[in-house]
């Protein structure tokens, strides 16, 4: 099980470490060449394409960011898919309750309540794993069911549609040409990177993933640490729900569930491991972008859908192989 492990160090170091960059550049190059030769147009140099890919990766990323921290700590959070849904539905309900003329304030309030609902799920997860010693896989699978049921029950069905220009602007507007969901994801990514790389909290998270005894005996309150981790995971997923409601003018109980697997994949493509103790936010960001690029790119090339499944599978494997071969080269493992 001993693999070259990645722990957060400086931004530069992380960047250099992540050869996945190289892979990303390679596939981008491939699609660009394809576009030029086959279709006589461009893949990369169109704001629309870049924006679409960026928005798609940001939706994956919002689930993957907090999850990265949890996975680095040696745990997993399966509940985030439906936490996203719960927060999306709650936000939509509050906006609806505020009536059709609800202004910006109501939307902000709705967002706070939405994230609040997510935080509750995170607290429960943390409490189960920290205090009751429930393995995180099972504990968060349990809250997955509970959050799903809760979202459907409060929504009184699957979706709650809203009409709010403010919410819509939040999901579809842009800031200097950068779509707001992307701005949100960037801000959160920077925050999570800061947490994981530059704070005590981050070091403790890495140590927890490597050897629980090491942090516990060093005098860290591991229970508190675990609860924080699951709350962060729930918060980024919950913010994903807010973005969802804004983008689609509807809160859906299923909002995050279909992308859960992509989020987990992004974290692992980014260098994390099942056993914990490794993984970086930069890696996860690249992982999410790789996934979004290939999904977009394969449709763009017009590959038939079933072949796309095959191609996505292959690209995921190759992405990791590229990363592996680099560890081999640098002698990280012998």
């Amino acid at each position, binding site marked *: 099980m001993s693999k070259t492990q990645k722990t957060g160090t400086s931004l530069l170091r992380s960047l250099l470490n992540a050869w996945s960059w190289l892979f990303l550049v390679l596939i981008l190059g491939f699609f660009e060449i394809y576009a030029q030769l086959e279709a006589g147009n461009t893949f990369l140099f169109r704001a629309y394409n870049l924006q679409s890919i960026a928005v798609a990766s940001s939706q994956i990323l919002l689930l993957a960011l907090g999850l990265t921290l949890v996975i680095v700590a040696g745990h997993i959070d399966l509940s985030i898919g439906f936490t996203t849904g719960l927060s999306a539905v709650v936000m939509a309900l509050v906006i609806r309750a505020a009536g059709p003329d609800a202004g910006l304030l109501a939307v902000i309030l709705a967002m706070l309540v939405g994230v609040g609902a997510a935080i509750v799920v995170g607290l429960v997860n943390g409490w189960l794993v920290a205090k009751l010693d429930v393995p995180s896989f099972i504990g968060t699978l349990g809250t997955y069911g509970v959050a799903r049921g809760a979202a459907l029950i409060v929504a009184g069905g699957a979706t709650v549609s809203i009409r709010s220009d403010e919410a819509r602007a939040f999901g579809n507007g842009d800031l200097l040409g950068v779509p707001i969901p992307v701005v949100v994801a960037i801000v959160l990514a920077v925050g999570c990177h800061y947490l994981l790389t530059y704070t005590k909290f981050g070091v403790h998270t890495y140590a927890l993933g490597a050897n629980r005894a090491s942090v516990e005996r060093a*005098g860290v309150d591991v229970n508190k640490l675990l609860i924080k981790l699951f709350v962060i995971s729930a918060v980024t997923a919950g913010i994903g729900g807010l973005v969802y409601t804004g983008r689609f003018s509807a809160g859906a109980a299923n909002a995050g569930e279909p992308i859960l697997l992509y989020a987990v994949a992004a974290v692992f493509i980014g260098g994390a491991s099942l056993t914990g103790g490794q993984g970086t936010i930069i890696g996860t960001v690249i992982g999410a972008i790789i996934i979004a690029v290939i999904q977009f790119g394969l449709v763009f090339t017009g590959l038939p859908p079933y072949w796309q499944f095959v191609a996505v599978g292959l690209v995921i494997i190759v992405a990791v192989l590229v990363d592996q071969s680099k560890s081999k080269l640098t002698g990280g493992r012998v």
Partner: protein
Amino acid sequence: MSALLQVKGLKKRFGGNEAVSNVNFEVNAGECVVLAGDNGAGKSTVIKMISGVYTPTEGEVYFDGNLLTGQSPEGVRNAGIETIYQDLSLADNLDPGLNLYLGREKTKSVMGFTFLDRAQMRKDAAEVMKGLGIVVPDPSAPVRDLSGGQRQAIAIARAIHWKAKLVIMDEPTAALGVPEQREVMALIHRLKEQGVGIILISHNLPDIFAAADRIIVLARGVVGGERRPAETNDEEIVRLMMGATA
């Protein structure tokens, strides 16, 4: 004046096996008490009950006159007790600096934001380890990549780096080279001079005699005898370890 540490009637049962039964002893400030005993005698179990890793099945520990039992390892460490565990308890994926400061990391402030001061911690680690006679080739490599002795040196560095009132050392020199072993013995003397209490666990008879103010011999979970080094000799200690009655 009451003792720095008082261990009263400690007992620990694991399933059907009573690893430690009714252990009592005291450690005074500036004193080095050696816990000796054969493999499996219960030494590590005793010190883990002091440091908060295990909850005793029975008995209490008092430190500085206050009840310590029931505290988490965090509470024990904050009370002023540092421990070098036999298994070292390092975070293998972190570098020596972060391991040295784990739980008490150094930070610096940049534009109002607090950042870990990795460089400083690394430097400090290199320095403390140099004091033990150890040079680590790449101070930014995770400790997983270090040699057995280098790893042990980090665990030692971590315990002595803080102004503790009591330092517990579970076989601290087991993996160390000859010069490093000597450094640790010298270190124990320096700590004693500073009034720090020490509990040392060791299987090395010369070291035991060199460091101990008192030797407490555990045999199969019970205190087989307590001796001052001047009053005893190798043979008697070994006999006590083997369970001869005091």
